[in-house]
């Protein structure tokens, strides 16, 4: 063998060794030096963390009636990793009747959050699900997830109290993030009512499923699982039966008004609270809406500016309350010693005040009468006189003592209005305003404030904080919250004076009172009728405030039927009559047992 060939073979062998060393060095670099990095990359590759939604806590009425529950529904989601071609998205858009650009936007917006599926549509119909399943192989990356959908078992019952859940907005996510609470863009969140205020209690804690997936995004194994913690259940103070009775009573009266040709009627409120605790037993805002179909009907409901079905009128709307206010100047005058039980004022149907500069009228000529018949017969002149003797400052001060002019303190719903008093605080206040203020005109008072007023008259001046959530229980059934009655204010008036006012209110519902029809109810009702003039309209609001049973009050209430015709005969009285009749009827109560 020649030397040249030997040399060349040695060069070739050297090349073999060199290349082998090169490969080995690179392998050592990858497999030893950078092992951790590539191990993590491989884990990233194969693992996907999937959130497991926690069932939202249920909402019950005080009597255990289930009001808000969860039912399984379908959601269509995308795994961004796999969905790159526009065809899948256009097909989805067509099938779901959604905007293609919206889906793309959604995918873009969620891309960086995690490898979690991006929800495109929730609560999808079974027909759509079937169609997607048929084309499953053509639609890689499209997954159908089962998802719990909020269901309001009794439809519109207590809709304004319960509120509703809806898709979270970007702004809400940021707000929650600022509080250190994490939400996904696909989460639903309480948007109104107790669902909104008690969101964090109801929400529950998301679980995690760590799954292994292959390159096509298909799940191959479950690696680890952290179970979600279901949200806490809430028991409301609402009495489902009473709520239903009250809703029906108000609805029937208003529907009758509308049917009889009243084009202005269509709104009303009822609030019933327990004067012994402040627990709200019924809260009705008419008209209501069905939270189950809210998403579909939202535009229409929001557009109804006249009846505002989405608005909780019991705490957000305020009105003058008319004669239902009259107990206030009455008890103030008694407390101030300006009158006693026997003190009489003579009603001639008209009276002048401020040295003749102010003339005020009564609906009737009542003659000489003391405070009890004055309440029973709703004599304007008597209470004008009381207001005149008190003066605006003392009248305002007493009104404030009963919680008017500021929120009653209900924390379980958001947006309770304060209202305002017809007094010196008003920029356009004039001395003559005193006369209207004395008989409830010109004030801005919510239905809840009036119910609280009734409760304070019934319980002798205790202002309990009104509340809607009685207890909350975690998923194990352990009590985690229990509301205790909270006294916000206690008025120290003489018991005798309370009794005088209560006697007047009892006489309202008897012969000679303004609501004699109510004497036939199964329990004695103490109350006061009211009619609120609505400026420049032929219509007026019909109101009723009171409590029952008169001797041992359990329910304190206020009813307002807006824009009932200005005519003799109250629309509020039939409402409260029907409520009391049904609630206390032996048959109905027995059925409940």
């Amino acid at each position, binding site marked *: *063998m020649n030397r040249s060939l030997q040399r*060349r073979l040695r060069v070739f062998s050297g090349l*073999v060794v060199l*290349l082998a060393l*090169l490969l080995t060095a690179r392998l050592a670099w*990858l497999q030893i030096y950078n*092992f951790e990095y*590539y*191990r993590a990359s491989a884990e990233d590759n194969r693992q996907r963390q999937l959130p497991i939604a926690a069932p939202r806590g249920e909402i019950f009425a005080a009597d255990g009636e289930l009001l808000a529950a969860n039912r399984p529904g379908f959601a269509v989601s995308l795994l961004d990793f796999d969905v790159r071609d526009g065809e899948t998205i256009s097909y989805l858009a067509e099938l779901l009747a959604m905007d293609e650009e919206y889906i793309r936007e959604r995918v873009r917006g969620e891309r960086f959050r995690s490898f979690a599926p991006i929800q495109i549509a929730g609560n999808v119909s079974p027909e759509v699900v079937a169609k997607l399943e048929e084309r499953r192989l053509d639609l890689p990356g499209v997954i159908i997830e089962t998802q719990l959908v909020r269901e309001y078992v009794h439809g519109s019952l207590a809709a304004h109290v319960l509120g509703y859940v809806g898709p979270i907005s970007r702004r809400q996510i940021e707000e929650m993030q600022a509080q250190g609470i994490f939400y996904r863009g696909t989460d639903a969140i309480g948007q109104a009512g107790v669902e909104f205020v008690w969101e964090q209690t109801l929400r529950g804690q998301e679980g995690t499923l760590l799954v292994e997936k*292959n390159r096509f995004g298909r799940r191959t194994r479950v690696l680890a699982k952290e179970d979600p913690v279901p949200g806490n259940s809430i028991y409301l103070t609402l009495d489902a039966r009473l709520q239903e009775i009250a809703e029906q009573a108000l609805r029937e009266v208003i529907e009758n008004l509308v049917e009889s040709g009243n084009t202005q009627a269509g709104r009303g409120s009822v609030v019933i609270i327990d004067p012994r605790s402040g627990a709200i037993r019924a809260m009705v805002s008419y008209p209501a809406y069905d939270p189950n179909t809210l998403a579909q009907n939202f535009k229409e409901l929001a557009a109804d500016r006249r009846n505002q079905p989405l608005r909780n009128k019991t705490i957000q709307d305020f009105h003058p309350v008319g004669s239902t206010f009259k107990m206030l100047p009455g008890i103030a005058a008694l407390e101030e010693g300006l009158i006693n039980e026997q003190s009489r004022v003579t009603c001639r149907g008209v009276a002048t005040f401020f040295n003749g500069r102010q003339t005020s009228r009564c609906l009737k000529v009542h003659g000489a009468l003391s405070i009890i018949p004055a309440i029973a017969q709703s004599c304007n002149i008597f209470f004008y006189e009381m207001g005149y003797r008190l003066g605006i400052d003392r009248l305002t001060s007493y009104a404030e003592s009963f919680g008017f002019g500021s929120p009653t303190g209900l924390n379980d719903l958001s947006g309770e209005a304060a209202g305002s008093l017809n007094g010196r605080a008003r920029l356009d206040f004039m001395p003559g305003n005193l006369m209207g203020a004395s008989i409830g005109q010109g004030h801005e008072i919510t239905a809840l404030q009036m119910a609280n007023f009734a409760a304070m008259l019934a319980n002798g001046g205790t202002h309990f904080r009104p509340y809607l959530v009685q207890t909350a229980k975690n998923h194990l059934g352990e009590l985690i919250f229990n509301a205790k009655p909270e006294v916000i204010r206690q008025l120290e008036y003489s018991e005798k004076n309370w009794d005088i006012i209560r006697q007047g209110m009892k006489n309202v519902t008897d012969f000679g009172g303004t609501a004699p029809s109510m004497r036939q109810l199964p329990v004695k009702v103490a109350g006061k009728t009211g009619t609120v003039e609505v400026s420049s309209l032929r219509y007026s609001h019909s109101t009723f405030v009171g409590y029952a049973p008169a001797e041992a009050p359990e329910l304190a209430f206020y009813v307002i039927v807006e824009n009932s015709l200005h005519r003799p005969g109250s629309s509020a009285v039939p409402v409260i009559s029907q409520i009391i009749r049904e609630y206390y009827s032996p048959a109905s109560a027995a059925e409940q047992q």
Partner: protein
Amino acid sequence: MFDRRLVRSFDFPLLLSVFAIVLLSLLIISSATMDSLAGDPFFVKRQVIWFLISFAALLVVINIDYTQFYRVTHYLYGLNLLLLLAVFFLGREGGGAQRWIDLGFFNLQPSEFAKLFIIISLARHLAAREGNFASIFSVIPTFLHVSLPMGMIFLQPNLGTALVFIAIMFGMLFMAGAKARHLLLYVVGSLVVGLPLLWQVLKDYQRMRLISFINPERDALSGAFQQIQSVIAVGSGGVWGKGLFAEGTQSSLSFTPEPHTDFIFSVLAEQIGFAGSVVLILLYVFLLSRVIRIAAQAKDTFGTLICSGVASMLLFQVFINIGITIGVMPVTGLPLPFMSYGGSALLMNMMSIGLVLNVGMRRHRLMF
């Protein structure tokens, strides 16, 4: 059947190293494919059959004195061209290229056998020119000899195999005595002139592969996806690997592309780690050292050059293929000799080893 002297000269270590690699191959192929086929050993079975056929072919090859081939190289060259031409008319499309002829029971890949044919014909071509490499132009006839079959393969298009031809040619030229500096000049020159030209000729998918090799992060989902996933698989194997048939590996979850063919090394490196990879590389180094040894001992230049050609071919394929899977070479479709699943390649590689063994067996000049 054999002359005793022939048996004594038979290089058993070379054959054993080939067996060892094939055995490893069967293990990795089964590990890489069993999962996706839910336990069906389809690929392993086929590869075993192919191995038996190939081994039979090897036995046939070593039975024919290689010097007999010297006389028929012209016919072999012609047959080679015919087969490559046939691909254009009878070929089947695969992966954007026409490479196979469907023979019913298997797909013949003439470009694989073309490597063997060119080694033999080039060995004669260069043996005849031994010692005539003083001029820089002396290698031009060799270029022409190779460029005809290579050009046809390039046009299939099959860039990987065409490059193997260049490696074979330069390796054999060097061994035949061509001056290293001349060869280097040609390599540099052709790179300068050839690359822009090559760019024009390349198909889109080939360009994408080159681009993605230079900048893999550019589009992690198409071109470079394979290579990135392969590198992740290799790196995540660590020193000892995740184990054969392990769950949750890159290959069992389909992240590793072509896990039983072009990227089989990636599977091996992931499952039996750095240790296993080094064992395989050492097996190849050993195999090549035996081939070089036989080249050195051959009784004539023809034999030496045949062995050099086979060694060049194997070295190039091993280095490029492993280089691709560990991210130091751009992706070109090249199987890993004796490891990748595939009948034509295994058959051809076994036959080329047979040829080398043949040369080794007959290294002693006849004594009578």
